[in-house]
């Protein structure tokens, strides 16, 4: 009996340890590439709906929508990462991301992706750091790389993604 209890405990312990070492990501595709965002920062997944355009901003900032009374910006990730534009259809997906900013307030933003594929478990240890491709913008948003079933998933840094200040700098330069 005593052994069994111990076993149970170690099992639980292992389970806990496993959870501690694991992170869940929501993966989605942009063209042929697969990306992932921390599932805790995903607020909801919606279908594409027409936005209100914001004047004089980069073309990947599609505009703003009314999300239950809040004004939420929508960014096209394809265009953001320079993957070309894809016509929107009712099947186009908007992933609504939310993070807590330093001031303790939540920031919400929607990103347009081609399709949502899966929720993946990734062990922290197996996450590789992002390779440095030089000056290309998109890598700065990539936290790391993970391989799931032989596929490579690029894990995005949501905080950086939501911070639109970085884009301002780019505009100025």
């Amino acid at each position: 009996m005593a052994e069994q209890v111990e076993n149970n405990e170690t099992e639980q312990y292992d389970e806990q340890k496993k959870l501690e070492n694991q992170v869940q990501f929501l993966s989605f595709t942009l063209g042929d590439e697969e990306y992932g965002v921390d599932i805790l920062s995903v607020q909801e997944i919606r279908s594409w709906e027409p936005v209100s355009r914001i004047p004089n901003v980069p073309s990947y900032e599609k505009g703003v929508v009314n999300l239950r009374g809040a004004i939420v910006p929508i960014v096209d990730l394809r265009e953001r990462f320079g993957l070309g534009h894809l016509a929107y259809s009712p099947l186009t997906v908007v992933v609504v991301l939310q993070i807590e900013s330093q001031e303790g307030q939540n920031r919400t933003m929607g990103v347009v992706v081609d399709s949502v594929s899966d929720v993946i478990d990734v062990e922290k240890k197996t996450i590789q750091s992002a390779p440095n491709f030089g000056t290309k913008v998109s890598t700065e948003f990539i936290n790391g790389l993970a391989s799931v079933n032989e596929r490579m998933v690029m894990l995005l840094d949501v905080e950086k993604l939501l911070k639109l200040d970085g884009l301002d700098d780019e505009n100025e330069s």
Partner: protein
Amino acid sequence: MSIDMAQFHQVFFEESFEGLEAMESGLLNLDMGDVDDEEINTIFRAAHSIKGGSGTFGFTAVSDFTHVMETLLDEMRDGRRQITQPAVDVLLGSVDCLKEMLTAIQDEQDIDEGQVSEYQKALETELNGGEQSSVAEQPVAEVVADETVTALDVGAGWKISFSPHAHMLKTGNDPVRMFRELSELGELKSTIDFQGVPDFYDLDPENCHLSWSLELLGEVNEDEINEIFDWVEDECDLAIQSLSRSDESSEQVQTEPEEATDKSDTVAQPKEESSPANTEKTADKVEKQATAKAKKDTKPAAKGSSSIRVDTGKIDILINMVGELVITQSMLSLVGENFELNNLDQLKNGLSQLERHTRELQESVMNIRMLPISFVFSRFPRLVHDLSTKLDKKIELVMVGENTEVDKTVVELLSDPLVHLVRNSLDHGIEMPADRVAAGKPEMGTITLEAYHRGGQIVIEVKDDGKGLNKDVLRQKAIEKGLIDEDTVLTDKQTYELIFMAGFSTAAELSDISGRGVGMDVVRRNIQSLGGNIEIISELGKGSTIAIHLPLTLAILDGQSIAVGDERFIIPLGSIVESINIKKEMINRVAGKGETFRLRDEYLPIVRMHEIFDVKTAKATKLTDGLVVVVDGQGMRCGLFIDDLLGQQQVVIKSLEANYRKVEGVSGATILGDGSVALILDIPGLVRLSNQ
């Protein structure tokens, strides 16, 4: 059965602070030579009710203190005492002291005993010092008062025992009305007997279970009493006895109510225990106590913003409106229940009614939040009075437009910046009397506080006729402090704005009144955080004016929606001057690039909305095809070239920055009826853009 008095404390504090304000402004308005009786009466009444209130709630320190003030005021009121400046000053000081005492009690902190006794002493010396005769008079007056009271006590009266039959209320007779009439005849003491009240579950709310024993003091004719009870003679047991002049009766009266309450307590007790809901009840009670305690704990933090006093008229309007809304709603649901196409008119009717009522309701709810700016202004007479004495300057304060209404949040956040501005004017603006005379100006300086509405904004001006801002000094100072470079070229306006920079102070000598160099930048930040801006107009030797522009309310805006291509924008209605179709001959080109048009005698720049906002779907690209809306952004005008005007509507302002960032030319966003988002144009920003 005891009432938790703590629940009334907040009201008492609010009333007392209001009273104190009334006293303060009254005292400041007192004209030494020619005293207005009504003014003194107002001050006296305020002191009296604070004394009464604090006595009721057991704040003896306050009531004792106020008593001394009251005595002094009473003598002034009766004309037994000359009103002198020192006396008024002592009273003003006492008002401050009283304010601090009340704040301390409110925050559940200890009262500063030293200060209190100091002022109490000052008051007492004033009381005794003034005229010796009044000292002698005072006790006499008290004795006389005592006598009249006792005389009343033993005066002839009636003891009435009144126990209505259970069905009396159904006949339309109301004991309260009868008691009111009785109390008009003389002093009425009443004791209620609860013994007849049945268990809660057996209680019929339409029956009367109470009985009263009343004492009516004074010389009253028995017939007069009978007349009051005439209508209910058959529906009650009534016994009217003449009161004897002995002390016994009054003693009896004293003990009786105690007995009665005792009884009712004991009656209530076992009942509670026997009832099955007992445990629930006590649990409830504990919870209530806990929440009460929690409330108390959080009170200091929530101080100031916790409540709002509203004119009952406004509430009545609101109730009326809600009634109308309910009627419309029921009408609409009736139409919707069995809808046929020939009911369409009815439906449309109902919907338009609904729209109207919603708008009215919204307006009146917003109206509740509106307070007159005098809430902020009222503290300035005192401030000016105190500071001018301290600085030996002669200053008159003029206030204009105190009844201008502003949103409550704005009022609250406005007061600190304004205090700072007024202090600055007092300290740095207005010169010493001798200097003023030397400069050929009247000895008495004037500070004007003015509030008025302009467009969708409220403008508050602090104007002084002092020495004005010296541009050279400002510039020199800024260079010294390293805020600007020596060769920086500044316009007059930019030079004045230097004083808003952090770490800038022009006063040669720092005083404790102003001039620590931390103020003006904070003032500007506060105003900007409210969505307003601040500007300075100054003339050396003549004075300066600081104008604060603020939005009227922070949440809702009257908007005109416009179309540019297939996009919708909102222009704040207040900034629209007019809309016109322009003709070819009105258009001029400046240096071949910028476009202007002539409106009467003015040349205005044209801003092509579809160009600066890069709208590709715009229908009108030729100026003569579309509409030009003339807008006014803080004194500067321009014409916005758009496709069409759509309609006016009230829009709820939503922040664009919360999830996004600031966009040039856009002050916010709103959600339209169809759920889509429209951007609200930042007119001053656009006008600035157009001038660049």
